């Protein structure tokens, strides 16, 4: 039965479902490394999805759509950066408020701008470009799974090692980690924690915005109210579970994507949806208990947020 459940289309599904979450989670991990607790990914993703579809409708260009999504994410991220970094406000409260703001704003603007409710498809069916890499996409198994993705899909996967290199091999990455771990120490060496934190939060805005674009114009081709559907929260969990390490976060996203897609299959076998819905979370909880080595950093970081 397992062989029948774990087929190639399952893996394709895992990778597709993974990409928006991964994009947002990378943004989240950068923030966490910079010492900002980022739980507004959900709202920024939603705003990004809306902006992408709106821009695609107006300009007919996928590039413009992606740019608009990034801008929308950045605008919301600036609210967090200003409140939490410049004004020392509580990042959890700001994050929750931003999520509410995004829901209100997108459902308010949808009828205002496009005269429709609920869902909206951009004119001309604009989509984020999907590229089958010649040669590679024909490889058995991994070809369709890994080499037939949208541009943002490749970007998300490449961002994992890129983020790792950035954090652990570059000057800026070192300083970012320093700021996140001991802001005062960084200040005494002339590294402004404000600048780095702003940069990190804005980066998460870009990535979560793009995650929204991928969701609304990559995975499908439509905006629906609340289309982010909790994926931003999953990204938050992935950051925690992966302990803000790029490969750890990727693994967490994979675990999550896999259990979710596997759950769909189980439903097809007659298991109740309420059980398969809980599956990813239960598996994550179990994974947490098994991989419970050192969450000190997280405890430290979050202890200062309340």
């Amino acid at each position: 039965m397992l062989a029948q459940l774990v087929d190639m289309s399952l893996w394709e599904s895992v990778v597709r479902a993974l990409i928006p979450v991964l994009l947002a989670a990378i943004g989240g991990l950068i923030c966490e490394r910079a010492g900002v607790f980022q739980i507004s990914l959900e709202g920024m993703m939603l705003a990004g999805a809306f902006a992408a579809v709106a821009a695609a409708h107006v300009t007919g260009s996928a590039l413009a759509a992606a740019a608009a999504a990034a801008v929308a994410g950045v605008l919301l991220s600036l609210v967090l950066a200003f409140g939490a970094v410049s004004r020392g406000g509580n990042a959890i409260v700001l994050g929750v408020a931003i999520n509410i703001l995004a829901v209100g704003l997108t459902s308010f603007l949808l009828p205002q701008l496009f005269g429709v409710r609920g869902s909206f498809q951009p004119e001309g069916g604009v989509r984020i470009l999907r590229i089958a890499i010649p040669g590679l996409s024909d490889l058995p198994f991994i070809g369709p799974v890994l080499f037939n993705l949208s541009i943002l899909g490749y970007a998300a996967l490449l961002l994992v090692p890129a983020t790792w290199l950035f954090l652990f091999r570059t000057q800026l990455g070192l300083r970012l980690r320093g700021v996140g771990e001991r802001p005062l120490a960084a200040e005494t060496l002339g590294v402004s924690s404000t600048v780095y934190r702003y940069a990190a939060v804005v980066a998460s805005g870009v990535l979560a915005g793009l995650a929204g674009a991928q969701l609304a114009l990559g995975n499908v081709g439509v905006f629906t109210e609340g289309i982010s559907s909790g994926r931003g929260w999953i990204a938050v969990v992935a950051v925690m579970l992966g302990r803000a390490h790029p490969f750890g976060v990727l693994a967490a996203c994979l675990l999550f994507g896999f259990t979710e897609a596997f759950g769909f299959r189980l439903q097809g076998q007659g298991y109740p949806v309420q059980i398969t819905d809980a599956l990813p979370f239960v598996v994550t909880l179990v994974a947490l208990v098994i991989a419970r080595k050192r969450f000190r950093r997280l405890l430290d970081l979050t202890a200062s947020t309340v």
Partner: protein
Amino acid sequence: MTVALVVAFGLGAVVIALTGGDPLAAFGEMLTGGFTGSGLRNTLSRMIPIVGMALAFSLAFRSGVLNLGGEGQMLMGALFGTMTAIVLPGPGPVVIVAALLVGAAVGALWALLPALGQTKFQVPLLITSLLLNYVARATTSYLVRYPFGEPGAAFASTVAVPESNRIPDFPFLGGGISISLFFVFGLVALLAVVYRRSVFGYETAMLGFSGPFARYGGVDVERKTLLVMASAGAIGGLVGSHLVLGETYRYIDADMIAQTGFAWTGLMVSLLAANRPVAILLAGFFFAGLQIGGFAMERATKVSWQLAEMIQALVIVAVVSRLGLTWRRRRKLGEEVGPPQPEMETAHVGEV
């Protein structure tokens, strides 16, 4: 605070004006709709879950226990409280008390799961409590769909709680306000005194300030974590039970999950009020009024309720960002709370 409100409403006004509405009329409706007449009654009624959940969060947060699981605690408590009120025979008042106790107990047990995870397995409660919200959704959903569900109902829901087993409304107030409000006021007073004057309040506050310090002083950190979580979960369970026994009289799956919005509103209210019970009461009243007023505004002026929601979010952002304080004062404030702190006086790493 005032500046924050002006900024938030100012932004809201711009949006209303841009979409062709009359901001003054809209806000007028919002205020009269939220804080007068039957709107006031609805506001008071809506305050119950908001303040209740905020109190639950305050208990945890001021002790440095990062409980994000209010939603799940509320759902689990609500379902089991409801089932008790449905199946338990006996005189109404007895059944109600029993149902509330069961709701509180189940909420507490659900909250103890992440607490035990942290104290026994060192898995941060922050993550597990958040994850358990989803598990609670699925679990309640399953239970109310299958074993606890009303046969033949179109939705996944329990049967209605028998009339005798419902939490009554205040007499003479025009109806609609459950006497739970009375208990919320009581809880505010109780916690205000406990936080300021009791050994428990002192010890948990110290735990919130510094875990190693509290441990050093003989505070049983693990036990306190469990106790705090259980109490927070119990309050969450009570709030959930109230929402059914005192308001909707039947646990409807989709409806209850929509009600979990109260958990997040409560979380914000608690943090905005710096976890102080009386401030929570005031902030909770204000937010409840904004929400009820938002619907009134839509009814009267066609400005959509989403806008009210946005204004609420903006108020929070403005307040949290302390827009009322000047830059100078804020800087000083920062210096006061952030003195030349030891970053690493000793290198040994203690257990958390």
